[in-house]
C-alpha cells in the first residue's frame, strides 16, 4: 500500500498506478455505469412497462411502475453525478459515493422481480464499488 507519497515500492503489485488514481477512477466509472443502468430502467418503467417480468404489485416494494420509473430515473442521475464527483477523490465525494452505492443496492432489491438478472448484476456492482472506495480510498489521500 502506498505508505509514502513517492514512487511505488517493489512490494506493490503491478495493478497499482503511482498516485493511486486507478481504484478511485475504477469506482467512479462503475458508479456512473450503475447510475446509467438505473436511469435506463427508469425510462423503461415510464415508457414501456410491458417489458418487465411481473406486474408492479408483485415487486418487493410495491409501487406502480410510474413511481418506480421516476425514482429510478432521478436516482440514477444522482448516482451518475456522485460517480463523476468521485473522480476528485475527496473525502466527501467518497462518502457520497458510498451512500449512492448503498441506496442503489436497496433500490435494486425492491425492483428485483421486474428485472431479476439485471438487479442481481447491479447489486454485485454496488458491492464492488463499496469495496473499491473503502479499501482503496486511502490511496487518494496523498494525491
Amino acid at each position: 500500500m502506498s505508505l509514502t507519497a513517492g514512487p511505488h515500492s517493489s512490494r506493490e503489485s503491478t495493478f497499482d498506478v503511482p498516485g493511486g488514481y486507478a481504484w478511485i477512477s475504477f469506482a467512479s466509472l462503475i458508479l456512473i455505469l450503475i447510475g446509467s443502468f438505473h436511469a435506463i430502467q427508469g425510462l423503461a418503467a415510464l415508457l414501456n412497462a410491458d417489458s418487465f417480468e411481473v406486474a408492479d404489485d408483485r415487486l418487493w416494494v410495491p409501487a406502480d411502475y410510474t413511481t418506480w420509473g421516476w425514482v429510478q430515473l432521478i436516482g440514477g442521475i444522482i448516482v451518475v453525478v456522485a460517480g463523476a464527483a468521485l473522480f476528485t477523490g475527496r473525502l466527501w465525494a467518497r462518502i457520497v459515493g458510498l451512500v449512492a452505492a448503498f441506496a442503489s443496492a436497496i433500490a435494486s432489491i425492491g425492483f428485483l422481480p421486474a428485472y431479476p438478472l439485471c438487479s442481481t448484476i447491479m447489486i454485485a456492482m454496488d458491492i464492488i464499488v463499496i469495496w473499491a472506495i473503502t479499501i482503496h480510498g486511502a490511496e487518494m489521500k496523498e494525491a
Partner: protein
Amino acid sequence: MSKHAEPAGATPASSYEQPSKWVGWIVFAAIMMFMLGCFHAIQGLVALLDDQKFLVAVSGLVVSADYAAWGWVHLIGGIIVALAGVSLLAGWLWARIVCVLAAFLSAIVSISFLEAAPIWSAIMVGLDIIIIWALIAHGAEIKQADMMGPPPR
C-alpha cells in the same frame, strides 16, 4: 494480497497524513453488514405485509412456519445484523466474532427461505460469504485498528 502487508489506514505513521476513518476493511465489513440487515428487514416486512408475493405457499418451505413468523424472524434478525455492523465501526472487542456469527446465521436462514425468494436469498448468501471473508481473511487489520484506537487527529 501481498500489497496488504501493512494495514490500510490503521498504522499511525508520522511520515504521512493519516487517512480518514472512512477507509479500510472495517468500513467495508460494516457497510456490508448494514446492507445485509436492511435486506433482511425488507424481506421481513414483505413477509409480514404481503406474503402473496412469494413463490411458494408456506408448506413449500423447508421450515414450514407461517410467513408471519418468518417475517418477524427476518425483521428482528435484520435489525440485529445492522446493529452488529454499527458495533464493528464502534470498535467493540467482540464485534468481529458477533458479526461472523450473524452472517453465518443469516446464511442458514436464507438457505431455508430459498424457495420463497430464490434470487434474493442467493444474493444474501453471497453477501454473507463476502462479509465472512472480509472479517476473517482481513481480520488482522480490523483487530489492529481496534487495539490502536482511533487515528490521531
